[in-house]
């Protein structure tokens, strides 16, 4: 078991050492943000990106790294994924407890400013309890079913994929539950693969995957 633990550790080390800032900015997101302060007489006065983003800390942690136990870390996620997520909440196409109520409070421009802030933040991952046996099994499942979109054990913030590695287990459980129930729609490109995972591996497989992501800190 020690060897296995080492292997999981190594994988998490890779994840943490992954060079930051390799995330592409999409053209629509050439936003101007000067931390708290936008000087000059901007046409419509907007809060600065940090001003907006600091209000998220209460639930998502200082600079977007959550200390748990359930609310997700949002540091380091890609600009595109942040915007997609906030718009989905705003339009209530993604189920949530309070995020839909919060997202409606921001203009699209403000959401872009926040996205730029969080994309720049380094993730601070926290250790959490996990089941080693399940995590090892989950790692295999990840490679088989998920790695194509969620590269590097789900540690890479790709254009349209959320970061899974080190994410809080209860949040992942909620998210899987919403995908499985259909409450949260999934793009066709991913749905096929996801359905295959559920059909072939069932609830146990889902739990193993979650334990694998929880082990990555």
């Amino acid at each position: 078991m020690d060897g296995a633990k080492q292997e999981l550790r190594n994988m998490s080390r890779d994840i943490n050492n992954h060079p930051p800032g390799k995330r592409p900015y999409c053209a629509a997101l050439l936003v101007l943000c000067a931390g708290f302060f936008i000087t000059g007489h901007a046409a419509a006065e907007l809060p600065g990106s940090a001003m907006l983003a600091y209000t998220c800390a209460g639930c998502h942690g200082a600079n977007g790294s959550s200390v748990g136990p359930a609310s997700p870390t949002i540091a380091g996620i890609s600009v595109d994924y942040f915007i997609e997520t906030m718009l989905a909440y705003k339009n209530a196409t993604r189920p949530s407890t309070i995020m839909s109520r919060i997202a409606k409070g921001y203009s699209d421009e403000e959401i872009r400013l926040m996205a730029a802030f969080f994309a720049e933040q380094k993730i601070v991952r926290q250790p959490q309890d996990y089941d080693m046996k399940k995590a090892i099994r989950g790692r295999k499942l990840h490679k088989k079913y998920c790695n194509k979109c969620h590269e590097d054990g789900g540690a890479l913030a790709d254009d349209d994929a959320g970061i899974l590695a080190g994410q809080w287990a209860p949040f992942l459980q909620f998210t899987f539950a919403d995908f499985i129930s259909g409450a949260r729609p999934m793009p066709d490109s991913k749905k096929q693969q996801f359905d295959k995972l559920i059909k072939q591996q069932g609830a146990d497989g889902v739990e193993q995957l979650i334990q694998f992501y929880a082990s990555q800190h």
Partner: protein
Amino acid sequence: MTNITRRTFITISAATVAASAIGFPRPGIGAGKRVVIVGGGIAGATAAKYLRLMDGGIDVTLIEPKKIYTTCFLSNEVLWDHRNIDSIQFNYDALGKHGVTVVHDVVTAIDPGSRRVTIKGGKRFNYDACVVSPGISFNWDAIENYTPEASQKLPHAYQAGPQTLLLRDQIKAMKDGGIFILVAPQNPFRCPPGPYERASQIAWYFKNHKPRSKIIILDPKPEFSKQALFTAAWERYFGYKTGNSMIEWIGEADAGEVTRVDVKRMEAIASSPYKGDVINVIPPQHAGKIALQSGLADDTGWCPVNHRTFESKIHKDIYVVGDAAIAAPMPKSGYSANSQAKVCAAAIIAKFSGEPEPVPSFVNTCYSLITPEHAISVAMVYNLGPKGVIQEVPGAGGLTPKDASDEMRKREVAYAYSWFRNITHDIFG
């Protein structure tokens, strides 16, 4: 973290190109400037930390008598031993590491003329900006016989700490079949859903441990925060509105205003006397005493401030944040205090460096835990309205939907605990 908040984001949008924004703040701009913070609770500790994060050149002194701060949030869970008090206690070590000078003493005077703060120990502190964040104090004149001494028998437990433990011990010692009276305050007061969350949790405890007991809420108000959600939960779990309800709410229409207590006879007197085995009196409130003494409050007993900067409307270079400030429509909550303190810190730094006042943005989210698997919330995003007054962003926010599923209510419990961990880490970490 310092360099992150300092980072200039240099991507440029077509819409704002004309504004020719520059990255700001620049390092060290506040060097030599002194900020003195009066009160190291939620608002004061947040302001201290964020001032230092935004500009490491500023000299920040935080004055707070307590070495250990006990959060009011989640303190209702301590009342029925669902949680240990240590889990809601924090020290000031991390603030010290952020370069804040922490002085454990009581501020006895703030002099806006000489821009000086005096502490009980006699020492004086000069300031360029003073942040006043003393929270609330109780209006001891409002309820006849309800004095600080009386609160040792009839606890308020509305400033967490020894009072929380006192009420906890009384609840624990109460016999099955006893009556718990909660005297709720008039608006505005700290944590509007707080008394009703408390009643819900104690009812849950009674239901499981002392099922013949009753809770009577005596309330001067015609309605209360999250009322429909609370009463729906009370109907579901506690027989509310039936002849055998565990909770009875007596509001304004039924003359629920308590004007007097009789400590000896253990009575809260509204239009008629109510006898209780445990009586929890939450008196009406105003801004912390030091704010009143320093002339920072108006007739309402709360402190008027500029909503863009939180600078006092009465005294220049003094900023009031948290429960003590008039920031309606924001409620007096920990989340509001944390959010306001960051806006205030940014405004102070902008002022020191001669930059325009930043445009503020605020959030409040308040969770109320009803049972271990059932929580509800209210959330809102705020910005500055056309008249320079804080406004709710139209279309945003609101309450947990009435028809939210059990699963969603359970998730709100998990998110409530996450909120607690993250906000306390943001403040004291």
